[in-house]
């Protein structure tokens, strides 16, 4: 089944990012297609390559980048990102900045949309 995932909160501060990641890994393991991952609101902070968590902790941006390397479309909302200082030059690889039209397409084309936030 085609599933889209939207994330509203930043990494580490809220569990949303971890819940979404664990959900997506489980969905992929079951053979579902992830139609796309969309970061909105503070969610845009998830994909900055400047983050440097303690060595014994998970690296949230790298995790998203690895999912992107598998071909999953990972989109960061441009309006939300600009206001918060997330620009192309700080993005991890395999992630792109685009408009809300992408969220719209995901909501229409995916058979399910699951939202994680707080």
């Amino acid at each position, binding site marked *: *089944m085609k*599933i889209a995932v939207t994330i*509203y909160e930043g990494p580490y501060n809220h*569990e*949303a990012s971890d*819940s979404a990641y*664990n*959900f997506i*890994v*489980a*969905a992929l*393991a*079951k053979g*579902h297609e992830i139609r796309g991952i969309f970061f909105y609101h503070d969610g845009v902070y998830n994909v900055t390559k400047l983050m440097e968590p303690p060595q014994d902790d998970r690296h949230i941006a790298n995790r998203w980048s690895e999912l992107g390397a598998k071909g999953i479309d990972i989109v960061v909302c441009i309006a939300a990102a600009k206001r918060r200082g997330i620009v192309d030059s700080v993005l991890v690889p395999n992630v792109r900045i685009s408009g809300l039209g992408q969220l719209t397409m995901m909501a229409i084309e995916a058979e*399910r*949309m*699951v*939202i*994680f*936030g*707080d």
Partner: protein
Amino acid sequence: MLHTVNQSPFQKSTLESCLRFVRKGDVILLLEDGVFAAQAGTAMSSLVEGALKSNKVYALSADLKARALTDVIQGVEVTDYAGFVDLVEQHTTHAWL
């Protein structure tokens, strides 16, 4: 419908709101701080106990374990992320954020 609730019933009215909009056949998944509602013998247990009379209620195991909640209300089904995916496959989802 699958209703996901990720907020503590002690601090937020999210679960109470959700329950007003749950129909026959709908299921509720408690995750993140939402799993505090799944604990037996608390001042908020009656919310989930009431919901169980007409609907299935699930609680995410990873979140229960992280919070050391072992005494789950009878009737609540503990599930993992794979089970969460199955619920999403079966139902359109609404997140009560």
